[in-house]
């Protein structure tokens, strides 16, 4: 197995005057779930289409296992893809759609029923996909992606149109696939969705790389950590903490959210002042907050707001490596 499943180098895609993908470089390592994040219109789908050889890049390369998509032998055996846009003839049955794919790759018919069972579409296998709900359509797309047992899965917004049950199903499926040693490259604009599934994140904005890092590092780096403190002497504690430079937010329930100071330091300040603590718990920033922070940075970088405080706004590309 090659060291890198997907290798994108200096990828550029322009449509007329618009640059959808702008000198983008990143790699997707095997055996884990890599989240591909960015706001709508950031260029995620375009990047995936370029990797899959559906669109021609204006510049740069996108390789899978060191090869261009079109040079893969029986590509569906190497890569299973779920695209955001429709990719099924509505007048054809689910079974016949999969039959076409199976025949082109030399995969036996019995496998079609296996994947239909897996996604729960066995009963509607002989129905035209015209009548399928959005969720059923996504399930058929997943069936198509898994049909030829690929080692790499490229999923564009797989939870789109799914009900809560379906979302949990996709999450568990992706985890199972990764546990089996498969590589999953999954895009989303829903940050919290990625927080619970992805091991690694590639974040893009306006077609450019913003971050390429592990999920933990990403959260630690891009969101401020806060500490939740409960104390019967909350007022006195807040005073003491402000004295050492911490920022305090009072919460309606009487607890305090402390920014800019480690939990250990808060404990020491409390001890030194003889203050009783009932709770001292570090709050990990969510991916959503981290993402908002990044997006904010991106927006501010391109359109500085007059009068906005000029502090601690990381420039675009600072996180890029």
């Amino acid at each position, binding site marked *: 197995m090659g060291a890198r499943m997907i290798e994108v180098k200096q990828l550029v895609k322009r449509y007329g005057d618009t640059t959808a993908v702008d000198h983008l470089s990143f790699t997707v390592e095997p055996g884990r779930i890599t989240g591909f994040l960015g706001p709508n219109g950031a260029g995620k789908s375009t990047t995936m289409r370029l990797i899959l050889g559906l669109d021609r890049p204006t510049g740069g390369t996108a390789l899978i296992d060191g090869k261009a*998509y079109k040079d893969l032998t029986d590509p569906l055996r190497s*890569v299973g893809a779920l695209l955001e846009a429709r*990719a099924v003839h509505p*007048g054809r049955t689910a079974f016949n759609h999969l039959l076409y794919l199976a025949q082109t790759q030399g995969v036996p018919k019995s*496998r079609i029923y296996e994947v239909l069972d897996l996604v729960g579409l066995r009963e509607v296998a002989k129905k035209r996909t015209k009548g399928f709900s959005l969720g059923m359509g996504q399930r058929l797309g997943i069936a198509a992606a898994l049909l030829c047992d690929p080692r790499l899965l490229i999923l564009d917004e797989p939870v789109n149109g799914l009900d809560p049950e379906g979302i949990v199903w996709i999450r568990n499926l992706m985890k199972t696939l990764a546990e089996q040693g498969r590589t999953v490259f999954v895009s989303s604009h829903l940050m919290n969705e990625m927080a619970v599934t992805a091991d690694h994140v590639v974040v893009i904005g306006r077609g450019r790389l913003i971050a390429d890092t592990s999920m933990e590092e990403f959260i630690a780096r891009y969101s401020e950590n806060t500490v939740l403190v409960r104390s019967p002497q909350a007022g006195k504690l807040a005073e003491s903490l402000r004295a050492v430079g911490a920022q305090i937010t009072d919460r309606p329930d009487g607890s305090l959210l402390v920014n800019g100071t480690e939990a250990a330091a808060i404990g020491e300040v409390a001890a030194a002042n003889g203050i009783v603590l009932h709770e001292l718990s570090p709050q990990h920033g969510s991916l959503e907050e981290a993402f908002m922070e990044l997006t904010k940075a991106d927006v501010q970088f391109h359109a500085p707001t007059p009068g906005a405080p000029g502090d601690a706004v990381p420039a675009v590309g600072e996180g890029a490596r």
Partner: protein
Amino acid sequence: MTDVLNRPATTGTGHANFGRLMTGEWTKLRTVRSTVYSFAALIVSVIGFTALFTFLTVQQWSQMNAGDRAQAQLDPVPQILGSGLFLGQLAICVLGVLVATSEYSTGMIRSTLLASPHRLRTLAAKCVVFTIPVLVVGEVLSFASYSIGKAILSSKIHTSLSDPHVTRAVVGEGLYLGVLGLFALAIGQLIRHTAGAITTVIALVLVLVPLAGLLPGSIGKHVSAYLPTNAGQQIMQIFPKDQILTAWQGFGVFALWTAVLLALASWLLVRQDA
């Protein structure tokens, strides 16, 4: 779930080959309703109109003037073949266009190109798989409609496959339909939009010929002779309509038009985003 995923999915050899692509394209062709409807329309209109027109000829025989009767007796084959073909060919035009454009209108093209990223090979497989059934059905229909027309006319007009050039003309109708299907497919692949492509094909097949006829004198005759379907239909004539192209030359011109359009469509398919 884990169970299914752990089971090896494949026992194949792992080599992409043209046979598999053709099997796949055949599955796509036979599993949509438009294919069945189009072939049904083709069969019904070719047989139906041939029977109707030849029947009416026999009915009206006594009212026809001597010149028309003589012409009908001298050269009955184009009438037998042409009466069904004139409308029937439109079914093949529509199907040829749909085979290409439905990929784009439905988004299926993305699944197709993911499964089979060699675009030229994919288009070639599609062309072969579409043309073979059209040719087979076309030949069967051509012989069937000739036999029906011949039987209905038998009391007034004699014609036989052993008469000079008749077999060539009857075989030619099937060949014409085969090339016409590819011609329509190429235009569908070029234009990618169903409505636009069908309009274009029908304009080329039905409208352009009478339009060229309005051109003055020999310019009109020459332009008209080289128009795709006009040239192609030469192969169904026993006596050439004009002296510009022979039967096979005309068919060759039609095939050349089709080849040029297919080459253009291939070039665009490879260059453009799917």
